[in-house]
């Protein structure tokens, strides 16, 4: 009888198929759409000031690359600063909110409500406060945009502690700080990153829109607003493309950091 040892094999985790593999269908669709766009402009004889062909935009991107790059620098700086500041502020706020378990649900609901408001609409006000040409006003608006989804995600994560984990930590007489460090914070990381993905996207929008209302003389938002005002829509599209690339790069960066910080979650893009 005792020869019948139970079968206990370790379960294999589904390995991520690499970071880029899930993006292949999306990239293919993108190419198809670009070709369709090109065809519509050429076959339909659409005027360039209404909708320039992708090939025309690509030409501008290549010829204006130095201009685009120098405009992207202050924008990217503001976005990165906002994501960092928003994450730090968001996590700190979440820890404080989660300490007051009775009130946390109410506060969380309020923060989630605030998140429904279009934070970018505050841009002119922040410009007036911090000076319209300073980077500070852009960083401030974007930081707020990042903080709210990070707080919502992280606080929910901190409040969701499995009963077994809670009882176990209690049984070994763990302090509140130890419960926070060993259980609550690591357990909240996946939810934090869910919030951060949303926040990173909002940060790019917030900085670009803030720059519409006046920026450091050279920034992507300013470039978009000025070239559109001069009806140089091929340049506008080129700047929009650069801004999209910035958003994509940031999203990718967040995904990479998540993979490093949350290795137990079989992370996939999407």
């Amino acid at each position, binding site marked *: 009888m005792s020869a019948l040892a139970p079968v*206990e094999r370790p379960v294999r985790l589904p390995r991520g198929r690499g970071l880029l593999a899930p993006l292949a269908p999306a990239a293919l669709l993108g190419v198809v759409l670009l070709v369709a766009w090109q065809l519509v402009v050429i076959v339909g004889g659409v005027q360039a000031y209404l909708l320039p062909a992708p090939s025309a935009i690509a030409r501008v991107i290549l010829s204006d690359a130095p201009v685009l790059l120098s405009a992207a620098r202050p924008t990217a700086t503001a976005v990165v600063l906002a994501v960092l500041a928003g994450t730090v502020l968001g996590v700190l706020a979440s820890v404080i909110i989660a300490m007051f378990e009775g009130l946390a649900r109410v506060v969380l609901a309020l923060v989630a409500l605030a998140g429904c408001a279009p934070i970018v609409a505050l841009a002119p006000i922040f410009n007036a406060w911090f000076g319209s040409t300073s980077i500070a006003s852009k960083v401030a608006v974007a930081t707020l945009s990042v903080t709210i989804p990070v707080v919502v995600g992280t606080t929910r994560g901190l409040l969701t502690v499995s009963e077994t*984990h809670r009882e*176990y930590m209690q*049984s070994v007489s763990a302090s509140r700080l130890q419960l926070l460090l*060993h259980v609550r914070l690591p357990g909240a990381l996946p939810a934090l990153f869910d919030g951060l993905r949303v926040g990173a996207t909002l940060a790019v929008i917030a900085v670009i829109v803030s720059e519409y209302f006046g920026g450091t003389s050279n920034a992507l938002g300013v470039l978009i607003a000025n070239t559109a005002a001069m009806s140089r829509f091929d340049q506008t599209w080129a700047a929009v493309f650069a801004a999209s690339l910035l958003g994509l790069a940031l999203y990718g960066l967040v995904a990479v950091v998540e993979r490093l910080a*949350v290795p*137990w979650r079989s992370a996939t893009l999407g």
Partner: protein
Amino acid sequence: MSTSTASTSTSTAIHLAGISKTFSTSSGDVVALDDIDLDIPQGAFVSLLGPSGCGKSTLLRVIGDLVTPTAGTVQVAGTSAAEARRTRQYGMAFQAPGLMDWRTVRRNVELPLQVQGVGRAERRQRADEMLELVKLTQFADHRPRQLSGGMQQRVAIARALAMQPRVLLMDEPLGALDEMNREHLQRELLRIWRATGTTVVFVTHSIPEAVFLSTEVVVMSPRPGRIASRIPVDLPYPRTDETRLTDEFQAAERHVRERLHAVLEPSTAGL
């Protein structure tokens, strides 16, 4: 209801006197435990057996100072339960392994030592010893989710043992496993218990499990939770799979079953 056993000659690890616990709910007070007296000798393996709602899990938590009794006193190795928990005398394992996904298997076993403030090198050494005890050395660097349910439960047992606790409290730790794994882990648990000499209080609703493991089976009755009978199991250790086939084991099992059925159907008891 409870009768004192003859084994009070050895030192008492857990002493319960007049324990009652009433929970207040929206539909009124519920008496979970009613006037429970129980002495558990040092090094014993005692199972709390009974139907759902008999308060066996609550009693376990009263011993472990996770639930404060409404009345009565708990003493663990001569001190209060609160003091015993503060000085980390308890190792606990639950029905869910409750491992932390964000830690490797080894770091999960290290957790109680880390909470206790044990240094990194000693922590690692003790964790590796515990993993050897539950025969999972080769999986030390795996993530909990990479292991089967039975292996995760063995990690949870290693974690419970890491602080070399005086008392091991287990709440249906094998309840979620299939029969094969369950019987395998029962043997493992006995081996570990005999190797460490820890006092074990083990909640279960399985009669064969209680009989196979225990030095004594405590049968509890529901609503309100009381001790219905205490049944010493005199089968010799080490107990093996062959033990389950012996007449003595089956007689003990039948005896416990009769007591339990008397609890479930009081009107037909003794007929």
